[in-house]
Every structure is written in C-alpha cells, then in structure tokens.
C-alpha cells in the first residue's frame, strides 16, 4: 500500500503568540515550531498500516518553506520513507489554494490512502483534507477516531455530537485523523539518525490564491477583571447569587 501523509509545520501549542510588527503575522523568533499534533496521529496510523501489511511506502508531503524540512524529518524519524516538500510562500490562511496544490501532487502520486491531521493548530481551518477529496473525487472521512482496512475497503468511525458515525468506504480514500485514534510513537535515536539520510525532494509550486486577504492579526479582547468571591465552600452562596443576579446565567 502506498500512503501519503500531508503534514504542516506549526507553532508548539505551549508557545506564547506575539503579533509581529506588521500587525498581520506572528513574531516567529523564539517560537518553537513542531509537527502539527493532529498530523502525528496521521503519521502513526500510516506506520501501523504499513507494519500490519508487512510492506508499502509512506510519503510525507508538506507545503511551505525550507523550514518545513525539519518538521518533515520528524515524520521520517518516526518511520516514514521519504518526503516531498512543495515549496511555496503561504501568507493568509487559504485552504483552497493549498488543497489545489496538494491535489495536483497527490494525483500524480497514485496513492492508495492519503492521511491528514483533522486540523492544523495554527489556523485551525479543518478544511484541506475534505477539500482535496472533493477536488480529486475521492471518498473521504474526516476526524476519524477508529479505522479498519481490509481488501481495499475500510470502515472508520468519527465522533459527532452525542454519537459516533460509522462510515464505510473504498480505497483509494482520504482520511483526516482525530486525537484518540492511536498513540503516536516518539522517534527513537536510530530513527532520527536514519531520517537524515532519507530522500527529501523539493518541488517549487505556485499557489493560486482564492481571493482572501488577512488584513489584521490582533490579540483577543482582554477579559474584564474578575473577582475572587471567597474561600472554600462557604463562598458558594455568594457565587450563586452573583451568577443569578449579576451575570444572569442561572
């Protein structure tokens, strides 16, 4: 089975975000960038499928600048076989532009399965996987928390409000992964050493913008200062009173 995993380089979730001088982007210096946490589940699932099948190839694909190579090496260190960097400058979040560029590359690769994290923790767009699926006319299940594949067919589960949707699909297919699907492995030292020698190809791509422009990035409005109602259980009546009569939420 030939599997593609599309990954993104994002600021660590622990990172403090500082708006840059241009008021449109973040200050990158001092920020640690990592493999998008949801993409780790996608990489892990691909590795599990390859191990279960006893063979196959896992290609990591990422769109961005040369800095993405480090992120891709993390996936290679986990066990993916090779990488393709689609080199492009992405400014505003433009899911459709990214999806079009990825779809073109994925079409050429003739993969049996394409995996994405369900969203990237930077722009939180939650969109590229299903978009690529529609552009490629492939079946797609997003935000999966369970997966079984056998004989060219698959069954995936996805959490919905108050239930779990069970979806059957045929391969080739596109899946996006949710936390809980698996436990991503940590790259072992041997994997990290080997990753340095794994092939990582770079291709220049030109994005076709879809008519969006990020005009400002700002901090969220400060919450107005709250107050400590009191200490211990004896403070509860005062709290309930405030919630009922002041905040009017009870």
């Amino acid at each position, binding site marked *: 089975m030939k599997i593609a995993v599309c990954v993104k380089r994002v600021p660590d979730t622990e990172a403090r*975000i500082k708006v840059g001088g241009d008021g449109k982007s973040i200050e990158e210096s001092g920020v640690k960038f990592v493999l998008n*946490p949801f993409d780790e589940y996608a990489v892990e699932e691909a590795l599990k499928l390859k191990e279960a099948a006893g063979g196959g190839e896992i290609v990591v694909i990422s769109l961005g600048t040369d800095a993405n190579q480090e992120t891709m090496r993390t996936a290679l260190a986990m066990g993916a076989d090779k990488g393709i960097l689609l080199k492009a400058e992405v400014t505003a979040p433009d899911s459709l532009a990214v999806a079009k560029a990825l779809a073109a590359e994925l079409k050429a690769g003739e993969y049996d399965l394409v995996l994405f994290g369900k969203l990237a923790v930077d722009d939180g767009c939650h969109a590229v996987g299903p978009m690529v699926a529609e552009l490629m006319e492939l079946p797609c299940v997003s935000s999966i928390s369970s997966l079984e594949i056998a004989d060219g067919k698959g069954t995936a589960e996805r959490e919905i409000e108050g239930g779990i949707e069970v979806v059957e699909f045929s391969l080739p297919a596109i899946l996006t992964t949710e936390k809980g699907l698996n436990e991503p492995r940590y790259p072992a030292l041997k994997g990290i050493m080997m990753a340095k020698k794994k092939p990582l190809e770079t291709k220049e791509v030109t994005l076709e913008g879809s008519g969006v422009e990020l005009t400002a990035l700002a901090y969220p409005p400060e919450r107005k200062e709250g107050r400590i109602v009191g200490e211990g259980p004896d403070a509860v009546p005062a709290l309930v009173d405030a919630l009922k009569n002041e905040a009017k939420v009870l």
Partner: protein
Amino acid sequence: MAAILAVLEQRNGEVKRVSHEVLSAARSLADGMGVEVHALVIGPGGTNVDGLGAFGADKVLVAADDSLQLYQAHRYAYIAASAAGDCSAVLIAGTSMGRDLGPRIAARMGAPYFNDVKSLEGSGEISITRPMYSGKAIATVKITASPCVLSVPPNAFAPVEAGKAGAVEEVAVPEAVEPARATTVNVKEPETAVLDVSESAIVVSGGRGIKEESDFKVVEELAAALNGAVGASRAVVDNGWRSHSEQVGQTGKTVSPNLYIALGISGAIQHLAGMRGSKVIVAVNKDPDAPIFKVADYGIVGDVMEVAPRLTEEVKKLSEG
C-alpha cells in the same frame, strides 16, 4: 441579487437549534447586502421544516429522501453546491457535520472557506473575524472572492426572530452520486443522551485538581444539576479518565458557552485558548495564583471536592425554589 444560502442541519428529521443561529447570522449578512436568505435542509422524508421563516428564511429549500437521513458527505456536498447556484455566500454551522461539509461545498464551488467565523459584515466584499492559534489571536480576513463558504461556531450568533415568509420549496434529490464510495451506515448513540461540550450553553470542566478518577463524579453531578455538558482538561484525558470528545483546549475543542465552570483546572495556556471565549467563566482552584483566575469572572479559592458538591446543592435549591 444573489441570495445567502444557509445550510441547515437535522437530526432524526428535526432541525437543530444551532441551525437557527446560522439562519440569524445569514439574516444579518443578507440585510446588509439587501438580499434574501434561502435555507437548505437535507434530510429524510417528512423532515420538519416548520417555523424557519421566523428565524429569517425567506425561502426554505428541502431535499428530502430517506437515504439522506444520516449525513452522507459526498451527496450532501453535491446537493448543497447545486442549491447554492449563484448565491453570494453559503453559511453553515461549525458542528461535526458542518466542519466536514463546509469545505466540501467550497471546493465544489471553487470558493474560499473559513470556519470559526465570529463576526461577519459587508455589502460587497465580506469581512470576517476568526480566531487563530486556538484563540491566542484574532484574525480579520477580507474576502474579495464571491461566492464564499463560512462556518459559524455554536453559541456565536444568537437566534433572532425575524418573521420572514419561509416558503417551502422542494428541490430534486439526485440519484446517488457516482461513484458512491463512502457511506455512513450507522450512528452509534450512547444509551443515555450526552450533551456535547461544544454545543452546550453551560459547560462544567474538571482538571488535575481532582485527584482520583472516581472523584470526577463531582463534575458530572454539577453538570447534571445545571443541565450542562461535562468537559475535561488535557491532563485528565491523557490519564484516560475521560474521553477525548470532552477535552477543551488547543488539541481538544474550542468552546464558547454562556457559562464555563473550571473545577481544579490551573489554566495552562493551551486550555485557556479553548475556553476564553466563554461569556462567563467561574474558576474553583486551591491555588490563588493559578492562571485560570486571570480569565475568570468569578473565583473561589478552595478544594474542588468541598466546593463543587456545595455548588451542586445550591444550584439544585435554586431550580427547585
């Protein structure tokens, strides 16, 4: 002029409340542009579409067929993109269905797409605001393309009575879109219905301040007394005490309920990112310096195991009284 299409959501043939919010968001945008709001409901035969005019639909398009009872992604996307025709914008709720369907409709229409839209305005070009970095920053985006597809999170737009006609019009349901390669075969529902943390108006979350798995019941009991949903911090989910579907934060869900009660949650930056958009925040923590108190409107310094049961008791008194 091109209308705004509001793609609504039904469960078991009833339109969900969150769809009224979508209609109201569509209405406010449409009023600014001087155009109509068309609502689209895809569902089983007999789906109840009464009263959608009251929330702002000038026209209600119904694609009803029993094969559409469950969310069938590819078919729903095809129907919605066809119904969108020359609409200038398509709005949908940021539910598990909307987050999957929205981008599909956009891709089919060749239109830009944004989720988590917190505000939107404009008469020609539409300008939106939405969180980035899970709420650590807010972006303003100008959309110069038309049409566009936008998804709005639950609880961001209040349903507003608008008193429009809501004339119902059946739309043709295409035969199964070929190739039909993915089919939702079943929805497994728990024996007792659970409120979803991202949709509920009240959320009670528990964190590391709760020392034993069995003690988490104080969170459940308070949530039940308030008719709210249970949430959890990442630490509690990573411990395996609670399902990931309840996790609030950057690798969980972003919530914006009317009332968020954090029990024994210190307020790690990635948790705050997921809940700071809540309207009223209450924190109970024994450490007076915990970061959660920086975002809380009301705080009690104390042991969760003592404060939470008392709070449950007082809330019950209130609802009985």
